[in-house]
C-alpha cells in the first residue's frame, strides 16, 4: 500500500518544482506531469545518456520525473487549455511553478479553476504577492541572494564564496512544497476544504542557513565562511584534514571527553603507531581524568596539552591512513568523523547498498535496467517506491484522456 494512493496530482512541468512532484509520486500519488508539445525544458538539461543530447535521454528528466505519468497540452491553444481544465477538474492537488501572472493570463490560475476540495501549490521565486524578476532566477542566483552562498567557501577570502552542487536551492523549495502539500491534504481530511499555498523559493533559502540567519536575528552578528566547517563570527580551527591517500576527512568536534582520549589512544595502539606519537602520554592523562574542562585551555598547561594532543593525534593518524580507514577507525574509537565521499562513492558503499540505496528501474525501450538513487526514508507499511521510469513525451496521453472521458461519462 502507498501512503498517497488515490491522490491525484496535476503537475505543470517546471525545473523549479519537478523534484517535489517526484517526492510525492515515489510515495504513491498519481502524479500526471503536463508538458508542452516541444517537451519540458528539463528534457534539455544534461547529462544525457552516452552524452548524446536527446529529449528522451536527459538524466535530469529521468531522475526528477520517476513514478509520474506524462501528458502533453499546448496551453497556447484553446483545445490545450480545455484539456488542462478537465485534467485539473479530476485532481486533488495542482503543483506548478510558473512565473506569477502567466497562468492568470491563460485563464488557468487557481482563481479560474478553484473548487472547494482543490489544493493548489504554487512555487515561485519570490511568492505570488511580492515583486522581483522571477524569470531571472537560477539555482545560483537563488542561493546567492538567499543566504547559503555567503556561508560557504574557504578560509582564504580572496577566493569567491561557493554555491554547493546538486541544485540544492531548488531542492529546498521542493521540500517546502511537499511539506505544504501534505499539510494541506491532512487539513482537507478534517475539513473537506482545499486551499491555495504560496511557496517562496527565496524565503525557503533564507530559512535554510542555520546560524547565518539566527545569529543575526538574535545578536546582530555576521558569520564568516571557513573551509569545510561552520561559518562563524570568528575563524575557528580547521577540521578538514587530508589523509595519506590524498583524500579528505571531516574530523568533526575535537576530542574532549575522557572516553574519546581513551579511544584515540586505543586506536593509535591498534594501528601500531602509538610509539611514534610522543604526545600519546597526554592522551593517557586525558583518558584518566573524570572531566576535561575546555574553558581552561590556555590557562591550565596540562589541559591545554591534552586538548592539543587530541587534535594532533587525529592529524598524525590521518597522515598514515587512507581517508576511509581513518573514518572507520575513528568511528570505532567513538569519534564522530566523516570520510568526504564523492556521491558515487557513497552510492557504492556497503552501508548504503545494504540500506537499499541502489534501486533498479526498467527502461524497456532501451533494454536496460538502470540503478537509481533510492529511498530517503524507510516506511514500514507504505514503502517509498519508484513505480516506473520517467514518462516519454506524451506517453500517457491516451490512457489519461480515456480516464477523463470515463469519469465525464
Amino acid at each position: 500500500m502507498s501512503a498517497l494512493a488515490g491522490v491525484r496530482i496535476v503537475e505543470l512541468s517546471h525545473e523549479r518544482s519537478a523534484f517535489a512532484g517526484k517526492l510525492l509520486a515515489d510515495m504513491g500519488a498519481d502524479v500526471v506531469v503536463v508538458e508542452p508539445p516541444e517537451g519540458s525544458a528539463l528534457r534539455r538539461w544534461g547529462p544525457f545518456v552516452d552524452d548524446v543530447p536527446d529529449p528522451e535521454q536527459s538524466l535530469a528528466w529521468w531522475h526528477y520525473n520517476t513514478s509520474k505519468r506524462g501528458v502533453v497540452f499546448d496551453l497556447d491553444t484553446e483545445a490545450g487549455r480545455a484539456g488542462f481544465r478537465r485534467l485539473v477538474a479530476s485532481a486533488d492537488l495542482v503543483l506548478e511553478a510558473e512565473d506569477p501572472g502567466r497562468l492568470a493570463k491563460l485563464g488557468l490560475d487557481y482563481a479560474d479553476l478553484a473548487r472547494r476540495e482543490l489544493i493548489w501549490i504554487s512555487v515561485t521565486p519570490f511568492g505570488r504577492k511580492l515583486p522581483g524578476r522571477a524569470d531571472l532566477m537560477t539555482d545560483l542566483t537563488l542561493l546567492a541572494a538567499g543566504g547559503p552562498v555567503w556561508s560557504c567557501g574557504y578560509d582564504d577570502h580572496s577566493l569567491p564564496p561557493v554555491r554547493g552542487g546538486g541544485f540544492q536551492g531548488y531542492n529546498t523549495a521542493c521540500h517546502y512544497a511537499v511539506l505544504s502539500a501534505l499539510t494541506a491534504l491532512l487539513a482537507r481530511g478534517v475539513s473537506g476544504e482545499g486551499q491555495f499555498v504560496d511557496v517562496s523559493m527565496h524565503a525557503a533559502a533564507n530559512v535554510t542557513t542555520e546560524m547565518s540567519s539566527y545569529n543575526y536575528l538574535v545578536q546582530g552578528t555576521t558569520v564568516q565562511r571557513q573551509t569545510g566547517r561552520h561559518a562563524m563570527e570568528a575563524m575557528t580551527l580547521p577540521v578538514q584534514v587530508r589523509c595519506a591517500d590524498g583524500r579528505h576527512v571531516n574530523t568533526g568536534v575535537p576530542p574532549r571527553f575522557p572516553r574519546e582520549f581513551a579511544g584515540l589512544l586505543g586506536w593509535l595502539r591498534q594501528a601500531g603507531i602509538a610509539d611514534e606519537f610522543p604526545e600519546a602520554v597526554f592522551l593517557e592523562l586525558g583518558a584518566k581524568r573524570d572531566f576535561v574542562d575546555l574553558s581552561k585551555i590556555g590557562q591550565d598547561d596540562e589541559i591545554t596539552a591534552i586538548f592539543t594532543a587530541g587534535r594532533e593525534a587525529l592529524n598524525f593518524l590521518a597522515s598514515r591512513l587512507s581517508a576511509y580507514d581513518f573514518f572507520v577507525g575513528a568511528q570505532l574509537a567513538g569519534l564522530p568523523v566523516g570520510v568526504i565521499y564523492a556521491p558515487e562513492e557513497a552510492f557504492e558503499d556497503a552501508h548504503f547498498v545494504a540500506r537499499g540505496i541502489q534501486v533498479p528501474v526498467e527502461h524497456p525501450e532501451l533494454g536496460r535496467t538502470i540503478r537509481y538513487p533510492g529511498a530517503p526514508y524507510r516506511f514500514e507499511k507504505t514503502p517509498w517506491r519508484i513505480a516506473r521510469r520517467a514518462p516519454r513525451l506524451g506517453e500517457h496521453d491516451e490512457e489519461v484522456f480515456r480516464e477523463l472521458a470515463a469519469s465525464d461519462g
Partner: protein
Amino acid sequence: MKALGHVPVRALGHVRICDFTGQLAGAGATKWLAAFGAEVIRIEDPVKQGTWDILRMMPPFVDERRGTDFGGGFNNHNVEKLGITLNLRTERGRELLAELVKKSDVVAENFAAGVLEKLGFGYERLKQLKPDVIYVSNCGFGHVGPYKSFKTWGPVVQAVCGLTFSSGLRDREPAGWGYSYMDHTGAYYMAIAILLALLHRQRTGEGQWVDLSCTDAGLTLHGPTLLDWTVNGRPLLRPGSPDSNRSEHPARAPHGIYPAAGEDEWVALACRSDAEWRALAGVVGAAWAREARFAALAGRLGAQDELDAKLAEWTRARPKAETVAALQAAGVPAAPVAKPPERVDGDPATAGFGLWPTARHSKMGEVRVDGLPVHFAKTDWEIARGAPCLGEHTEEVLTRLLGLSREEVAKLRAEGVV
C-alpha cells in the same frame, strides 16, 4: 460567506506529538508541525537539565544571561512547542510517559540508534501502548546497516553523503557547506515522513515506523550526478571536477560568482542562452565582450577561465547592487551574494513575506526567529510563542492531559520524577 462547521482553525490542530527531538535535525521537523497547530510536547530530562539538546545553552544570546533557557538556536527551532520534564530513570516517570504515548499520535526522536529502546520505549513497546502509533526515528546512519552505530552531526553527514565533496572550486579541497544544511534538510524529511504517516493513518487507521537516515536523504539529493555515474560511468571525482560555481549541467557560461567593489563583496551571474550573453555583453560594453568566439555557448564553455577573468575585472569596478540592477534590467540572471543584514533587514522579499516573526519567550522576551517560507490561504502557520523553558509546561500538561492534580505534580517534582 464562511463555510459552517468544520473549518479547522489550524491545519494540524488535530495532531499531538510526543517529541523527543533535539538540535536542528529533529527539532526543525516538529517546528513545522507546531507552527501549523499540532500540539508538540517536548520531553526532556530534569536530571541533565535538558542539555542533551546542546543548543539549549549555546550562542547566540539575546543578552549576558546564560544557561539552559537562553540558547538562541534552541528558541529558533522550538517555537510554539510545549516543554515538560520526565525522569525516565524512575518507574513513575516511565508510567507517565506511557500515559502520554497513549494520548499521542506520533512519537518522534533523533537520538542515536537504539537509545529510546534502551529507555524501554522501542517501537514494539510503543505499539503495545498505542496500536496505531506513528514512530519516526531520525539518526545519521539509520537503525539498520553496517554503520548504524556510527555517530554523526551535520558536517559529518554532509561529508559522507557527498554534499561536502560536491561543493568546491576546481583543483581545490572541498569547500563543503558552511552550516548544517543536512540538519535543516534531515528535519524536512522527518516532517515529511510524519505527515505521510499521518495521512496514511487518517485514511486507514494504521500506524507505522519510519526509519530516517540523514545520510540516505543527503545522498538522494544528487540524482542526475548519480545517474551520470550509473548510466555513463562518469564519476564526479575526476580531474577538474567538481567546480560547483560553474554549471556543467545544464551547460552554461558564463556562470559564477565574481568580485564586486568593496571588502568581501561578491555578485553571482549566469547566462542561460546566447541571447542572455549578448545582453550581458551589451551591458559590459567592452570590445572583448563582442568577440565572435564568445557568441555561441561552445566558444564560451571552452574559454571559461579567460571569460571569468575578464568579467571579474569588470564586476570588481562596481558595487554589487549596481551590477545586479544593470544586468537584470538587460534580462540577465544576476544576484548579490547577500550578507545576513542585507537579506534580513534590507530585502523586501523576506521581510515583506513575513519571514522573520517575533516570538515571545518567557525569559528572553521578544526575539525574531526564522519563519516558514510558505503561506496557506486558509490555515496558515502562526509563530508567536517562544521555545519552552525547561519544564515550563510540566504542570499544565500533566494536569490537563493526564488528569493529575497540582498537588500530585508538586509531589512528583519533590521526588525528582519531573
